[in-house]
C-alpha cells in the first residue's frame, strides 16, 4: 500500500512540538517522518511507538527517515534515534540514515563507532552473607599484616637512624618539631587548663561534704600528672598532627610523589615517616609536662579563687601529693602515645587511595585509629601500674 498514511503520533496539538508520522511507501519499508522541535526538556514521543509500529507490520525490513520538518534538535533526538537503531538491529531491520540531518547521521555513526567493550559494564551481584563475612575477615587479616609490616619497616628505619644511615632532610625534622611542639602549645594550654578546672570543680563538690577541700590539690595533681596530661596532649595531637600527617602523605600518594621517591631509591619510610615519628615522639613528653603544669594551674585557680585555699598551701599540698614516679609514668605514657599517633597517621596516609575522597577517608581513619589506640593503651598501662603497685 504505497503512500498510505498509517498513524500520526503527536505529543501535543501545537504545531512546533515533536511528532512522528509513519508511512509505508512499500511493503517492506517503514518511512518515519519526524517533525517539530526535538530538544531536551520538550515533550517528545517515545521510541516505543516505533517498536510498536515495527511489531505491527512484520513485513518491514527497512526503516527510512524524512526529517525536513525538524526545526530544532539536540541530544534528545539522538537518544531517540539510537533507541530506534537498537530496536532495528534486534529485529534485523536495516536502519537507513540517509534521510536524517547530516550532523545527526554523523553523531550516530560516532556514538556507535566504538562498540561497548566486553566485560566493561560492572555487574552488581549481591554476595551471600557468609561470603561477605568471610571476605571481611580476610580483609581484616590483610590489614593486620599491613600494619605489622608498617611497624616493622618503621622500626628498621629507626634503627638506621640510630646508626646514622637514614636518609632524610634535617630541616624537615626541625619543621615537624616546630609543628608538633611549639605550634601546638596554644591548644594544649586551653584544653589542659580547662580539664584541670573541671576536675577541681567536680572534686570540690564531693570533698566539701567532708570539709576536705584541700584535697582538691591532690586530686587534680595526681590525675593530671599520672594520666590526664598525657591523654589530653595525646588526643589533641591525634586530632591536630595525626590528621595532618595522614592528609599530607595521602595527598602525596595521590600526586604520585611517593612513587617518585621510591623510584629514586629513597625510602619513603625514612624520608617521610621517620622525621614525623621522631618529631612527635620527641615533642609528646614535653607537651605532656606542659599539659601537667597547665592542669595543675587550672586546679589552683579553682582552689585559690573559690575554695579559699591559700596559694602557698595549695602548692605545698600538690608537691606533697606527687612523687617522681607519677611524673615518669605520665611522661612514658606520652612517649607511647606519640608513637601511636605518628604510626596511625603515617600508616593511614601511606595506605591512602588515589582520589580526593580517599584522602578524607585516610584522615578520618587516622584520627579514629589514634584515639582508640590512646584509650586502649591508657587502660593497659593503668592496669599494669596497678598490678606493679606503682
Amino acid at each position, binding site marked *: 500500500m504505497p503512500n498510505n498514511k498509517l498513524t500520526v503520533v503527536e505529543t501535543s496539538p501545537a504545531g512546533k512540538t515533536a511528532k512522528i508520522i509513519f508511512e509505508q511507501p512499500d511493503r517492506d519499508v517503514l518511512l518515519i517522518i519526524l517533525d517539530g522541535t526535538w530538544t*531536551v526538556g520538550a515533550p517528545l514521543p517515545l521510541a516505543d511507538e516505533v517498536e510498536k509500529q515495527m511489531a505491527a507490520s512484520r513485513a518491514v525490513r527497512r526503516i527510512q527517515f524524512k526529517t525536513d520538518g525538524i526545526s530544532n534538535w539536540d541530544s534528545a533526538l539522538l537518544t531517540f534515534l539510537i533507541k530506534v537503531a537498537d530496536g532495528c538491529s534486534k529485529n534485523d531491520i536495516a536502519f537507513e540514515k540517509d534521510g536524517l540531518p547530516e550532523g545527526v547521521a*554523523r553523531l550516530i555513526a560516532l*556514538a556507535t563507532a566504538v562498540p561497548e567493550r566486553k566485560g*566493561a559494564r560492572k555487574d552488581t551481584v549481591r554476595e551471600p552473607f557468609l561470603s561477605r563475612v568471610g571476605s571481611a575477615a580476610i580483609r581484616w587479616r590483610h590489614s593486620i599484616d599491613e600494619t605489622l609490616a608498617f611497624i616493622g619497616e618503621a622500626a628498621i628505619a629507626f634503627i638506621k637512624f640510630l646508626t646514622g644511615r637514614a636518609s632524610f632532610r634535617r630541616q624537615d625534622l626541625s619543621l615537624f618539631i616546630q609543628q608538633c611542639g611549639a605550634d601546638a602549645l596554644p591548644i594544649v594550654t586551653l584544653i589542659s587548663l580547662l580539664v584541670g578546672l573541671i576536675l577541681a570543680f567536680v572534686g570540690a563538690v564531693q570533698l566539701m561534704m567532708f570539709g576536705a577541700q584541700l584535697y582538691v590539690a591532690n586530686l587534680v595533681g595526681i590525675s593530671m600528672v599520672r594520666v590526664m596530661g598525657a591523654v589530653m596532649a595525646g588526643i589533641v595531637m591525634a586530632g591536630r598532627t595525626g590528621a595532618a600527617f595522614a592528609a599530607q602523605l595521602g595527598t602525596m600518594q595521590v600526586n604520585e610523589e611517593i612513587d617518585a621517591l621510591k623510584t629514586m631509591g629513597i625510602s619513603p619510610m625514612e624520608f617521610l615517616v621517620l622525621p614525623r615519628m621522631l618529631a612527635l615522639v620527641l615533642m609528646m613528653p614535653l607537651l605532656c609536662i606542659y599539659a601537667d603544669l597547665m592542669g595543675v594551674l587550672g586546679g589552683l585557680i579553682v582552689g585559690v579563687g573559690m575554695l579559699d585555699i591559700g596559694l602557698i598551701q595549695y602548692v605545698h599540698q600538690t608537691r606533697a601529693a606527687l612523687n617522681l614516679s607519677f611524673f615518669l609514668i605520665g611522661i612514658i605514657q606520652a612517649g607511647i602515645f606519640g608513637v601511636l599517633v605518628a604510626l596511625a597517621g603515617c600508616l593511614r596516609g601511606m595506605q591512602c*587511595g588515589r*582520589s580526593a575522597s580517599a584522602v578524607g577517608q585516610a584522615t578520618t581513619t587516622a584520627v579514629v585509629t589514634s584515639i582508640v589506640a590512646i584509650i586502649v593503651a591508657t587502660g593497659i598501662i593503668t592496669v599494669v601500674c596497678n598490678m606493679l603497685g606503682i
Partner: protein
Amino acid sequence: MRLAHNFIIGQMPETQPHIIVKDLTMAFGTFVVQRDLTFTINRSDIFIIMGGSGCGKSTLMRHMIGLIAPVKGQIFYDDVNFWEAEPDQRDRIIRKVGILYQSGALWSSMTLAENIALPLQQYTDLKPDQVRELVTLKLALVGLAGFDDYYPSEISGGMQKRAGLARAMAMDPEILFFDEPSAGLDPISARLLDDLILELRESLGSTVVIVTHELASIFAIGNNSVFLDADAKTMIAQGDPNKLLAESTNPLVHKFLTRGEG
C-alpha cells in the same frame, strides 16, 4: 537548505561574532600577565589560543570562563558584557559553555555517569531515566560506552580526558573550551581526540576555543587563533594558523610554528 537547529539559530552568516575580547589586561596584583588583548571569535570557529609555556594562555581562558575578573577591558558573549552583567545573567551564559580542564577534573568521588548527570540534574527537570539515556549517549559519543559505573581513578588518563569531554558536552553547550586537550596523551589518542572535537563541531555547530601548544592540533583543526608572547606581554599575531605559518613575518611566531627549525 541548511538545517537550522538548536546550535545554529536561523540562517547565520559564517562570520557572526560569538565572543569578543576587547582591550583585556590580565594581572595578578601588580604583575601583569598580558595586556591589550583584542580579538573576536566567530560562531562555529575552532579558535586556538597559543603561545609558549607560561605566557598566560590558561589564564586567558580562566578570564573568559568567568573564574578570574579582568583588571581592565571587556569580554562580550554575543552582545552581553560578561563582567558587567548581573550574576544570574552571567550564570546563564556560563551554563551554555562546556569546559574540558587540563587534567579532566572529574569529581573523584562520583562515577562517570554521576559526573555527567550532575549538571543535567541541577539545571533540567528531566526524569532519572531520561538523564540516564543522555548520559549513555554522551559516553557513547566519546567512545566510552559501558563505562558508566567506573570511578575516574579506575580508568586511564586518555579515558579521563574523554570522560571530561562527555561531561563538558552534557548540557549541549554552544561553546566548548578545551585546556590543553592533548597534553599527556599518546599521538594516536591525541589525534583521535582532535578528530572527535572536529566531528562534534561539524555536527553540532558549536564554537570551540582551544588552549594548546600542540602544533599538530593547531594546524589540523584550528581556523582562527591568537598568539600570546610572554616577553612582549601581549598578542603578537592572530588569524588562521596555516596562514600565519605561510605569511607571518614575525620571527617569534614563525619560530614557534616551525618548532624553531624554520
